[in-house]
């Protein structure tokens, strides 16, 4: 009988009755063949692989992460609560030491969902990794967390949520934003003025092969992780770098994904995208599960795998090495970049326009953060969407100093008229409030 060296938890939730629309890539059929492969391989029978039923997350769990407009119920469905719940279930199983690591094979995905949610972006409504992470921080007091996003698309939602958080290292490896949705994730995007370097982007050129991905993990990601020393490593395990994926242009393989997982050693992996539902997902998921469990994955291979096609163009290899050097240099010089960005000011502002492709919404944001010498700084976002709502969203970070806590509460209670609603994320108190005038 097979025994897994690493006790591994799995939540498998294919949501066979949920789709964005009948022919959308995010449809009922997406994990059907993965289920067939996983069942046929007998993975749930392996001693040391434990299948869990997903919990549902609560509105409170979501409010820790998101400002939902107008409220949580309006921008989520049951399926989102289950998919985030699946990640939370695995996170708990790992923290409670019932398993040493775990994989939430759930849908719908979440890594394009940002801090403010007016609707769905890139098939995502709520950021399932962030909801899990903030739950774990609240419940178990975990502080330093690294998220490595290996989806082919830039994890712009996760980046946005942790942009100002120096305790969360977010590294996204993805197809270059000049060639793919969402068109972001460039090397220069390195985090807000109080958290420079804990956001890192590694844009890889189209047609990157096994060699390029594994080079990047070994020579860029692993050294940074070793220096950051996270308490937990989370992998946003998108599977659309696969050579057969219909909406991307990369050249990665199932065995490559398995090896990537073995190198990364994530405590928790969470499925993100991946839309080659027959040719890739069944094999990639089996590879990832075996690698998580510490089992042999050398026989995992797609029926049409061709080793010749995996020979990487030397120009691509050279380019990837260059990207890696740039990222490492940013990481090493992060303090200097941060000082330059702060430039001795007390506040920092940025204006942004965001687009929600799935729900066809545009959003205008003005963000203000206090450049606090004692903590990562309270911030607020003044946001207006094309649906017509104007919101003020105030965030007090987990480890905010007393001055920043006061400032956040003042911003919240003293908001001027003109907003449809004012929202407060008071992370130190774990309370999430709406409209101070309604409270009295």
């Amino acid at each position, binding site marked *: 009988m097979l025994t897994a060296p690493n006790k591994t938890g799995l939540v498998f939730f294919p949501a066979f*009755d949920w789709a964005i629309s*009948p022919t959308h890539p995010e449809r009922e059929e997406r994990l059907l063949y993965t289920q067939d492969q996983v069942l*046929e*391989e007998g993975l749930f*029978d392996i001693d040391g692989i434990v299948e869990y*039923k*997903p919990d549902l997350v609560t509105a409170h769990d979501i409010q820790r992460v998101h400002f939902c407009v107008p409220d949580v119920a309006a921008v989520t469905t049951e399926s989102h609560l289950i998919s985030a719940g699946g990640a939370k279930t695995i996170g708990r199983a790992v923290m409670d030491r019932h398993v040493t690591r775990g994989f939430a094979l759930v849908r719908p995905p979440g890594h394009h969902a940002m801090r403010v949610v007016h609707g769905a972006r890139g098939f995502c409504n709520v950021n399932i990794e962030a909801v899990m992470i903030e739950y774990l921080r609240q419940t178990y007091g975990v502080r330093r967390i690294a998220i490595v996003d290996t989806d082919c698309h830039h994890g712009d939602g996760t980046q946005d949520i942790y942009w100002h958080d120096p305790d969360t290292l977010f590294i996204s490896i993805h197809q270059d934003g000049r060639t793919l949705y969402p068109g972001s994730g460039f090397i220069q995007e390195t985090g807000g003025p109080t958290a420079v370097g804990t956001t890192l982007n590694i844009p890889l050129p189209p047609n990157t092969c096994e060699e390029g991905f594994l080079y990047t993990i070994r020579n860029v990601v692993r050294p940074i992780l070793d220096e950051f020393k996270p308490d937990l490593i989370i992998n946003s395990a998108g599977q659309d770098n696969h050579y057969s994926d219909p909406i991307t242009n990369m050249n990665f393989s199932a065995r490559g994904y398995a090896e990537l997982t073995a190198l990364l050693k994530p405590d928790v992996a969470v499925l993100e995208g991946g839309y080659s539902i027959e040719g890739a997902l069944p094999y990639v998921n089996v590879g990832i599960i075996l690698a998580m469990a510490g089992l042999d994955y050398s026989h*995992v291979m797609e*029926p049409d795998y061709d080793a010749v096609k995996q020979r990487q163009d030397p120009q691509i290899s050279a380019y990837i090495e260059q990207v890696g050097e740039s990222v490492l240099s940013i990481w090493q010089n992060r303090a200097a970049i941060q000082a330059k960005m702060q430039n001795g000011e007390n506040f920092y502002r940025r204006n942004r326009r965001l687009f929600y492709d799935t729900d066809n919404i545009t959003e205008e944001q003005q963000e203000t953060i206090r450049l606090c010498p004692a903590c990562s700084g309270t911030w607020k976002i003044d946001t207006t969407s094309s649906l017509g709502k104007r919101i003020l969203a105030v965030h007090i970070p987990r480890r905010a100093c007393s001055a920043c806590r006061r400032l956040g509460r003042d911003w919240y209670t003293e908001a001027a008229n003109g907003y449809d609603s004012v929202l407060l994320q008071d992370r130190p108190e774990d309370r999430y409030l709406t409209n101070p005038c309604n409270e009295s």
Partner: protein
Amino acid sequence: MIIGLDVGGTHTDAVLLDDTGPLKEIKVPTDHRDLLHTVTTGLDQVMADIDPQQVQRLVLSTTLTTNAVVQKQLAPVGMIVSSGPGIDPALFRTNAHYHVVAGSIDHRGREVQPIDGDEIHALAQALQAADIRYIGVVGKFSVRNPSHEQQIADLLNNHFEKIFMGHHLSGHLNFPRRIATTHLNAAVYPVHKKFFTAVKQSLAAKGLRIPIRVLKADGGNTRFTTSIDSPGQTVFSGPAASIIGSVGYAAPGTETVVLDIGGTTTDMAVLIDRAPLLAARGVDAGPHKTLIRALDTTSIGLGGDSAVRVVDGDFQIGPRRRGPAMAFGGPVPTPTDALLVLKKLDTGDHERAREGIGTLAGQLDQTPEEAAAGIFDCCCRLILEAIDHMVAQINSKPVYTVHELRDGHRAAPRELLVLGGPAPHFAERLEQLSDYTVRVVPKWHVANAIGAALARTTSEVTLFADTEQKTATAPEENFNKKIDGGYDRQAALTDAFDLLRDKAIRHGAQANHLEMEAVETQEFNMVRGFRTIGKNIRVKVQIKPGLMHGYAKLLES
């Protein structure tokens, strides 16, 4: 009239019954070295003074194949396994002659790599040279496309006595279990065939031509003639007879836990409206993870003969049995001794029981009566905890749709049915200590034989259709049909029910009373490039375990 005969670990029970109820019950000791003699002795006794012409059916529940597996007395089998990519198939080796060959089929049943005829021929010669007579042929995804298993079997044909193909034994996905299941079937085939042929001959020698049926692990019966094509279904059928013998006493429309309190273990099962739950994947006995349909039973190491000790000021009961109760000459005190001290039992040596319990009482500064009451309560609490745990396990089984997760049924049994030696005493105390309604199964001492006699014929059919590939396949039934784009869930269900009806009747079901139901119906649109190219349909239908039509009422009276 029907005869039910259940060969148990110590006793073999037989009942004779007709549509008015049980007419005769007998009990003979089980001789494990000569099961045939045990069975014929039981039959002779139960049929004494009966006109054999009146016996329509004999249903046997035996430990024959289970013993063969547990004692590793398995026939040498040649296993031929084709896998393709995935987990290394060498890891699923079942026995010495286990050979991995070329050939690969993918998850939709498409051929990825053909089999190599020369390789199979060479293997056939080698296996013949090794004097192998039984063969198991298993392919990954063979339930989606059995052609490779079929081709290999055709190439081997005429060279071997019996060939088992994985896709005939179960329609479920699970390659490692398919390998184990196929091996087990081939490995118990000769012993199964020899034994039942001998029973038949022994009856014939007395001029009796009674059709023989066999009880399966899923609590259903099948004709002996159909059982030889899947003899593995009788493996680990142990608990099934008693559970089926109890279902008639469960209150209709409720959820019930059946508790069989034995000497070494207590076996538990959940009934939902008199239907016992089936194990999710199949028989799961230690290293034997199979696709053999079985009742979902839980066993804990606690029974009348469990060894009782005092550990850290508390009673520890089981899980080991060190022998019979002290009252019956055993070495250590047991719950049975406690029942004697409490005057709930009046057989056996009271003094020895009191002496044994007294030793434990001394360690806790209690009187023997106090200690006995403590041990008894401790047993009841352990059983109640195990029930809670079992129900929680049932409710934590993963589901794969939003609908099931939100609105799925949660088991919440309200009644306990108890059988086994100390059943009446436990029933009373279990009711006091819990919110359950607790009842003792009437005639609990022969409920197993009654269960064997009255079990209905169960059956299952899995059908898989793919309108893009224009095929509908029910692998267990050799069913493969060309379909067109209009084939849908309803058409699949109709085909599946037709196949199930034929199969069930062939296996012995009453044609007018087939309680067929759909267990699973899934239909997916297959979309490629924003265009629907076909439908992928999965259907599972069954006749679930329970009592034969017309007999449920009889037990109520």
